[in-house]
């Protein structure tokens, strides 16, 4: 009697276990399904135009973005691509030294309380919504840039890049710190035993050893910066223009999609060209993330 009961109980437990495993597997697989569903959807909306008469030479080679012109529609995305590129590159010029420096400090130089507080505060930086960043750019940075550089308008590449730089710092710090932590302590001890100073250990031993992880940290930061929409929409001035200096206003691909998609009638050329832009964006971030992933794999293999 007692034995039968416990056997049934064991069976029940096993069934429960299997059910939970199934649910968890479904969660895992769902991510894959979502990613592919999104790729399919974006591509499906873009495809009729992409394969049906879009002038790719114009799309990539001309800065004339007139999707709503009555007489002469032109879909030149060069200025938008240049806008995204310029903001991202300048953002990285700000974020890489800052983010990796912070990662090195948190991982190697700070201890105890300082380290804990720093980590929490940096995570807090990641929790600020991007529309709030945009607001900071609009209200705080705009007059500062006007005052400092004497430009007529402070909504420009520099403004957007500064915000994006700060926004990608947390991801760089957390992944960069993990990469440094992954370097075995024996490396540090061996270097210190040979009389190296702390900075020499970091510069000559840890950075080369953690190279791949740090590269991944930077690339994920780049991915974050390219895809960001709201902050750059508010802070870059939204002008279709190939920038010649960091003080020029630009318009990014993401901001264009966000600003224009709402007005387009479904299925129109304008609607489709925005999905083509989305496809290009997706390809860029996909390549960046893939490279980051391969770089991370590089550390693990060793």
């Amino acid at each position, binding site marked *: 009697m007692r034995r039968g009961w416990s056997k049934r109980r064991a069976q029940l437990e096993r069934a429960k276990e299997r059910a939970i495993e199934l649910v968890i597997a479904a969660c895992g697989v769902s991510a894959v399904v979502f990613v592919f569903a999104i790729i399919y959807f974006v591509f499906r909306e873009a495809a009729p135009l992409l394969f049906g008469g879009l002038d790719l030479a114009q799309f990539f080679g001309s800065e004339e973005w007139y999707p709503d012109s*009555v007489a002469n529609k032109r879909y030149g995305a060069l200025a938008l691509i240049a806008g995204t590129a310029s903001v991202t590159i300048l953002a990285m010029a700000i974020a890489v030294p800052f983010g990796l420096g912070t990662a090195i400090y948190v991982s190697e130089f700070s201890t105890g309380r300082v380290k804990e507080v720093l980590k929490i505060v940096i995570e807090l930086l990641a929790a600020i919504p991007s529309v709030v960043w945009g607001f900071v750019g609009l209200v705080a940075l705009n007059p500062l840039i006007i005052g400092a550089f004497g430009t007529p308008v402070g909504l420009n590449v520099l403004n957007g890049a500064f915000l994006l730089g700060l926004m990608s710092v947390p991801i760089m710090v957390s992944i960069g710190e993990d990469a440094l932590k992954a370097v075995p302590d024996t490396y540090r001890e061996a270097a210190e035993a040979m009389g190296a100073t702390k900075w020499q250990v970091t510069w000559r031993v840890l950075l080369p050893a953690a190279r791949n992880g740090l590269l991944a940290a930077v690339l994920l930061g780049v991915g974050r910066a390219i895809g960001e929409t709201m902050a750059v929409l508010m802070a870059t*001035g*939204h002008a279709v*223009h190939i920038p010649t200096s960091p003080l020029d206003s630009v318009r990014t691909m993401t901001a264009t999609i966000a*600003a*224009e998609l709402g007005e*387009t*009638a479904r299925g129109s050329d304008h609607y489709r060209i925005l999905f083509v832009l989305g496809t290009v964006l997706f390809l860029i971030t996909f390549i960046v993330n893939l490279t980051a992933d391969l770089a991370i794999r590089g550390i693990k293999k060793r």
Partner: protein
Amino acid sequence: MNHATRILLGLTLVACACGKRQDAAKTVQVKGSDTMVNIAQAWAETYNGLKPEIAIVVSGGGSGTGIAAIINNTTDIANASRELKEQEIADAKNSTGKDVIQHTVAYDALAVYVHASNPIAKITKDQLGCIYGEDGTCEKWSDVGIEVPGCSGQEIVRVSRQSNSGTYAFFREWTVGEKKDFKLGSRDMQGSKDVVDLVEQTPCAIGYSGLGYKTDSIKVACVASNETDACVEPTIEGAVSGKYPLSRALYMVTLGEPEGEIKAYLDWVRGDAGQALVEQAGYAPLPQEKRVAAAK
């Protein structure tokens, strides 16, 4: 069933009940023109005071956004600060099988804004075309014959609106004609108020927006259709009489003849009560003969 589950179940039931009650109240979706957001909100709030059971939900986004929503049948009423294009009317007919109806609800004067320190006395249509138009050559304020104090380099900073804006469409059509486009490189703002905010802070700037967004610390240019004409300051009276050249009608657009609550709301908006709010918001009300008599 343990205690926690029981509480949860109870809460769910309450939530369902509340949800039902809210569904019973009728919602009317109004979407579109950013120029009209202020007045549309004022109408909605006042109307809600009269008929609390009707919720009028107003959102902006631009005339194009509202019209796209009508075409896709995702809103009850679209606000538009321009007339619908033939293509849009055909699209709406194709996708919903109904004809769109454009109800004139007010008039608006589109003001040309410059910084308070800008000395410009009169600006003509041709000058605006020269500044904004695709083949316009006016890049500096000296090209229109003035010098703006505090503007480094005297470069004209063009402030414009995004292409989903009815204000943009109307202004472009007036200045350079329907077939031509604007020069690239203007700062394209999201909303009517953003234009005024930016021009207010920027000595080099010029922008356009509804007269209703005027503040005390910005200058409104006096506009003339021709070099030879006297210029006209934008006023509500000028917009109603058509004397001010940059005036236009504001529309509320429905699919088919409005019925039920939507009709009641539109009639109220176009009646004396609704029109009284128009003037307070800085727009021009409908003349008496175009109003809808109060249904009583």
